[in-house]
């Protein structure tokens, strides 16, 4: 069963690469280099040390912005889900936050806080927080009062209640928020780097764009996609399996 799944995933990836190769052969143009050319470019950029350098910087920004957005979004989401009055107060701001274009937040953060990493990460986190809030709030509303009553009847300390009774009911929502969160943050971090940083994958892509270096753009994209798949396979899926083991 497990192996079949791995096979299907691998086959679908190989199919995608084949399709790319075929289209590149038909196009026969500099605009769409084939997979092999991109792979050579990827190796070259990697060996020169420049791709790993920029990739690590981008990943660091992604990690910090992600953790910040998850922590703040989860806290606000729980509070809004549990307290109707506060939900009412902040709901308007939440809808606003959900609908402000990412670009506006980014530009404003740079203008207000300068062209630095704090502004960059803040801009990314601000873009993500509202969606985390919405998902976690949904989860907090669905928390079973009957299980909370058990914790209350047995005088379970507040922190233990949070960890063993409350949060486990939020895990599916937190996993959903984390997944969609990572996807969104990858994308926004690159824009932030393009607009106001002098390193990172986004900055490099901007450079290649100016030189019309499509092969390098695809090589960087490939490296990035590789990391995303790795994070999904090594962190997200095992984590989800662990947290939902009891359902089986």
């Amino acid at each position, binding site marked *: 069963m497990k192996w079949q799944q791995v096979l299907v995933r691998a086959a679908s990836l190989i199919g995608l690469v084949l399709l790319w190769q075929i289209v590149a052969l038909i196009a026969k143009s500099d605009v769409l280099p084939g997979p092999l050319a991109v792979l050579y470019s990827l190796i070259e950029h990697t060996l020169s040390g420049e791709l790993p350098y920029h990739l690590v910087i981008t990943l660091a920004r992604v990690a910090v912005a992600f953790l910040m957005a998850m922590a703040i979004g989860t806290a606000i989401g729980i509070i809004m889900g549990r307290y109707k009055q506060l939900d009412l107060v902040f709901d308007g701001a939440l809808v606003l936050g959900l609908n402000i274009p990412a670009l506006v937040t980014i530009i404003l953060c740079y203008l207000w806080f300068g062209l630095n990493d704090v502004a960059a990460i803040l801009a990314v986190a601000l873009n993500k927080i509202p969606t985390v809030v919405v998902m976690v709030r949904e989860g907090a509303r669905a928390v079973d009062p009957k299980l909370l009553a*058990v914790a209350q*009847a*047995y005088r*379970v300390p507040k922190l233990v209640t949070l960890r063993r009774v409350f949060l486990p009911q939020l895990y599916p929502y937190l996993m959903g928020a984390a997944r969609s969160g990572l996807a969104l943050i990858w994308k926004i971090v690159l824009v932030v780097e393009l607009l106001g940083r002098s390193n990172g994958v986004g900055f490099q892509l901007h450079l290649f764009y100016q030189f019309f270096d499509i092969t390098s753009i695809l090589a960087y994209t490939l490296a990035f996609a590789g990391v995303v798949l790795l994070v999904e396979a090594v962190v997200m899926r095992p984590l989800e399996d662990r947290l939902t083991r009891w359902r089986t």
Partner: protein
Amino acid sequence: MSGLRIHIREKRFDGKTVLGECTVEAEPGEFIALVGPSGAGKSTLLSLVAGLDEDYDGEITWNGAPLSNHGESPAHMGMMFQEPRLMPWLSALDNVKLAEAERMARDHDYQSNAARLLEEVGLGDATDFWPNHLSGGMQRRVALARAFVVEPQLLLMDEPFVSLDMPTGNRLRRSLLRLCERQRPLVLFVTHDLREALALADRVLFLGDTPARVMLDHPVEGARGKDLESAEVASAQQALLARYPQLLSGILDNARSDADEDEDNA
């Protein structure tokens, strides 16, 4: 005075009175069954005693002092609900240990009794199972172990063995009485099954009327732990129902008041 004293003047839900003037007094170690039709406020009464609901007019005291205060449930209280209410993401052992968390936080030398209690209710080799992997009867055993792991002086049970088949229910009732024998908690046992009440309890309180109140305080003859299907329980039930035919519908009308009614109608 020692023991539990419940005096409710009124309990309202959304403006509707669900419990009227209600007094219950019980000695430590006593096993009291609360019987009444659904909607008679039995579960409500338990949640007031448990400190889960503080919005009522009245006093609930233990040895003369308020039983719970400010949303904090009493110490040394065990509780079983209509459903097992186990945390599905915790193993059977961790579910029982959850009830010990308060004790562990207070006393760092405290040794968990969870494993021993699971052993006592016959789940010694299922401690690592998730509730999903346990049968309904086994889940209630875990809930029973959890109720006793806090060494309760007060045990609140809200129809804990409802919707179990007869043999499973009987085994659980025996386990309950065995554990009670050792720790001697004061038990408030809510049930709608008169036979279960007569088989287990020392005293049966009948709730009914609107707003609900304690209509009848009936001492049970014979020792605890009678067989639900025994002739002894059946005859006790028959005697009660012969005297108060509508007792289980929450109406106290013995032969005399029937006669009065007939006269009134005539």
